[in-house]
């Protein structure tokens, strides 16, 4: 059964903001992401794509409709369960790198895994180092997170998103803040990760070139999905 379950599925997800005026940002959005799929979401500013992404990431729980992650509904789960589920199944890459400036690069990558507690500290360090090496920033591991360049930070953020072997990596304009060279590097890394097999990608972007190179582009308009891309 679980073999054919999509990694991520929404059923009629709606969200309304009440402040300062009542606006329905999402209107019964239903779609799914399959295993290994690289999906991008495009749309004008304010069409609700980022809002949707944060609902999908389980960080935003204030919505109507149903969200299924790896075949399981998240409806009614308490926040502690959700944060555990999030650290197990989802890796997140933000537009801005969002690393903890007080910690070393290596430690930043290790923290989510230490919290999840699936492996001991030494194993976690080993795995973190492996991922940093794959992303070609192994030599920066012991620097403080605020001492490396923007492109490097984004790669550290990707390494952090990968540390718990998530089913899906979500990105909110992960290349939005990078020049084209670094942008290409990050895209290639994400592309490579999804091509490896089971891991899915879901990326919100403004960049059409970026979107074109993904498996499927979902286009949103005014809170609805205008095009599922297939």
């Amino acid at each position, binding site marked *: 059964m679980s073999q054919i379950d999509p990694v991520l599925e929404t059923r009629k997800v709606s969200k309304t903001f009440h402040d300062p005026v009542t606006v329905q940002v999402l209107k019964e959005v239903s779609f799914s992401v399959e295993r290994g799929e690289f999906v991008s979401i495009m749309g004008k500013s304010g069409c609700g794509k980022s809002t949707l992404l*944060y609902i999908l990431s389980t960080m935003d729980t204030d919505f109507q409709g149903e969200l299924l992650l790896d075949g399981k509904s998240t409806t009614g789960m308490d926040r502690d369960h959700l944060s555990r589920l999030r650290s197990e199944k989802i890796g*997140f890459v*933000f537009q801005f790198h969002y690393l903890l400036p*007080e910690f070393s690069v290596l430690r930043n990558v290790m923290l*989510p895994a230490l*919290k999840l507690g699936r492996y001991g500290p030494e194993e976690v360090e080993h795995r973190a180092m492996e991922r940093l090496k794959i992303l070609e920033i192994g030599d920066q591991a012991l620097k403080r997170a605020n001492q490396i360049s923007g492109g490097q930070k984004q790669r550290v953020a990707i390494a952090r998103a990968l540390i718990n072997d998530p089913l899906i990596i979500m990105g909110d304009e992960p290349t939005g803040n990078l020049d084209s060279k670094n942008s290409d590097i990050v895209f290639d890394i994400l592309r490579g990760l999804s091509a490896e097999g089971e891991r899915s990608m879901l990326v919100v972007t403004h960049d059409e070139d970026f979107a074109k190179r993904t498996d499927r582009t979902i286009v949103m308009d005014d809170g609805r999905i205008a095009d599922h891309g297939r």
Partner: protein
Amino acid sequence: MTMDLKLILGISTTMLLARLKQSVVAGVGVTFSIMMYIALSGFMNGLNELLDGLILNRTPHIRLYNEIEPSEDQPLDLAPDFADRTVFISRIKPKAELTRVRNALGIMQALEKDERVLGIAAKTTAQVFFNVGTIDLNGVINGIQPAEEDRLFRFSDYVVSGSVHDLNAVNSVILGKGVADKMQVDLGDMVQVTTADGQRTMLKVVGTYQSGLADLDNVQCYASIKTTQKLLGRGNDMITDIQVKLHDLASAPALAREFARKFDVEALDIQTANAQFETGSNVRSIISYVVSVVLLIVAGFGIYNILNMLIYEKLDSIAILKATGFSGGDVRAIFISLSMIIGVCGGAVGLVMGYFASIGISHIPFETEALPTIKTYPVDFSGRYYLIGVAFALVTTYIAGLFPAQRASRIDPVEIIRGK
């Protein structure tokens, strides 16, 4: 669970070390308040105890004596002819009677067996004149039991020269400083005294005494009780006062009433004899409590403010932690432990600094006529203040961390991340 705790402590320590300057400022806030609390409380209580001691050390808890007063029963009351009349007698004179406590030796024996009594010291007072050339100076010789007097009433604290123990020699005397100065006598000199009955005796000066009250020092002198009894030409049952020190000061009024009834003597308790002292002592205690509490509250707010600021600066980090799988509870634990680390470190340094500050105060010179043996300010080093200080540091930093941590745990990471 222990794994989680280690991780959380690791995160909070790293955060503290990353902003070392700010953490140190927060810690110094705690240190300073604990130090001030310990030093000031110790100082205030030291002074209070000193002032209380001025009275408490010198005053017996209960004094048994015999008041000279007119007899309540007059012969006329016994006459049957006047039984149904109202009798007025004016100007009754006291009957001729010695001022000694009747059956003093028996009473002392009974008191010594009483478990509520810490100790007793007998005293015999004699009115005398010191004969200096052609002039007679007024004086009072208190016959005391030197060892007991010293044990119960710290007599030697007020003896500024010579030694209390030399009083045990026959015909020796410790003069009040005023008396000694007037007669220009020194240790080893002889003075001649005349009692009210006209008996003359030579006494050897073995010390001088200073209470701080000029009126007393000009009159009061001390000799052993034996010497005084001999001076008066009386036997060893000539005792005018029995001074009682109790284990429990508060029970003095009740016991005084009991002893008065049981032994048929006058009994004066310390609370009645020094009502104004009780009031003064209470007011001083209230003042020092209020100062301590205000000190702690002000310190508490300072600590709360610093930690609150520290936590607001970490909002981004909170959002990141939450987005990468840390729960609200973890975030709360991180910030509470952050706060408590500051509390424990700052508090521990505060204890040490408070101790050194107390030592410093206790070396400041403090010379007072009233207390010839005190040379520096008194400080109470009791562990109580250190315990309160530690408990306070922990509780305040916990509470100061709790409210902001509670808020941090409820922060919606999406709002902060998207707010950029």
